[in-house]
């Protein structure tokens, strides 16, 4: 499906490895999240009122909430997003959206 040169395959491998490292860092070292918006919401006592229950809330697999599960989920979802973006890109390549 992808017609890539050796150099392009190399850059793809480096990029996906970097993504996997980000996932591991995100799970093991930099997992605590308290953004400015969260602080403001906490000060106000504002509550989220979700209209939809996501299958993997807070980037965790329900009933399997540990580092291994989160890394697995992170890497699989990174690959899934890679696949979706490739699919959207391929559709856009031959799309008839343009006149």
């Amino acid at each position, binding site marked *: 499906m*992808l017609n890539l040169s050796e*150099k*392009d395959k190399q*850059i*793809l491998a480096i*990029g*996906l490895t970097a*993504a*996997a490292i*980000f*996932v591991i*860092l*995100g*799970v093991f070292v*930099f*997992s*605590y*999240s*308290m*953004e*400015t*918006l*969260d*602080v*403001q*919401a906490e000060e*106000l006592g*504002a*509550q*989220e*009122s*979700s*209209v*939809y*229950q*996501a*299958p*993997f*809330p*807070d*980037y965790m697999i329900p009933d399997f909430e540990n580092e291994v599960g989160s890394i697995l989920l992170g890497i699989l*979802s*990174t*690959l*899934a*997003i*890679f*696949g*979706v*973006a*490739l699919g*959207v*890109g391929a559709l*856009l*390549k031959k*799309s*008839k*959206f*343009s*006149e």
Partner: protein
Amino acid sequence: MHIPDGFLSLPIIIITFAITFIFWAIAFKRVGGKLDERKVPLMGLLTALFFAAQMVNYPIIGGTTAHLLGGAALGIILGPFAGGISMTIILVLQAFLFGDGGLTALGANVLNMGIIGVVIPALLVLTFNKITKGKGLLIWVFIAAFVGDVLAAIFAGVELGLSQPVFQYGLNIAVPAMAINHSVIGVIEGVVTAVLVGSLLKLRPDVLNKSSILKGLPAVKASQEKKE
């Protein structure tokens, strides 16, 4: 910066979705049928890379944390429209799979991070390049990424501030709080974006020759001529 459900008023939800739909229509029309074959894997890679990068929450000031957005890099490397579509993919999947950002706030989140955070830096670098003819490029990339990040945060603050009484803080509190903290984040975003663009320019300038923003640079042009 992902706004959850329940923080925005109905008028803000409607306005932000309307702007986002208009952007998507323009972006699909501009990119559709014109996306270069070599840009497809690059789009896939950068989308996956910045999705993963957004999982890293690093500490900033006052006990708060932040993560990279990647909007500036997507806009500068892929172009503003393909970059906007790429960031949209990240935000849609984050909302549907992980509940990161609300579905009712998806229009606002795409407007802030996928339009403002992507298009503004891309246009800034394009303008700086035209004026300076590529001189000091990485400084301009840094400034553009910084501005894109801070502006995206200001937009989020404005949307929240205008959503009273749903979100009780007005513009006078929501906007400065978002802008100040995101100035720190903007510096980091600027450094990372400049390092990424600089590395590609040095090591693989040919990857950038399909970028509507950078294709005119001498190093990128030279790599294209060499290839031909």
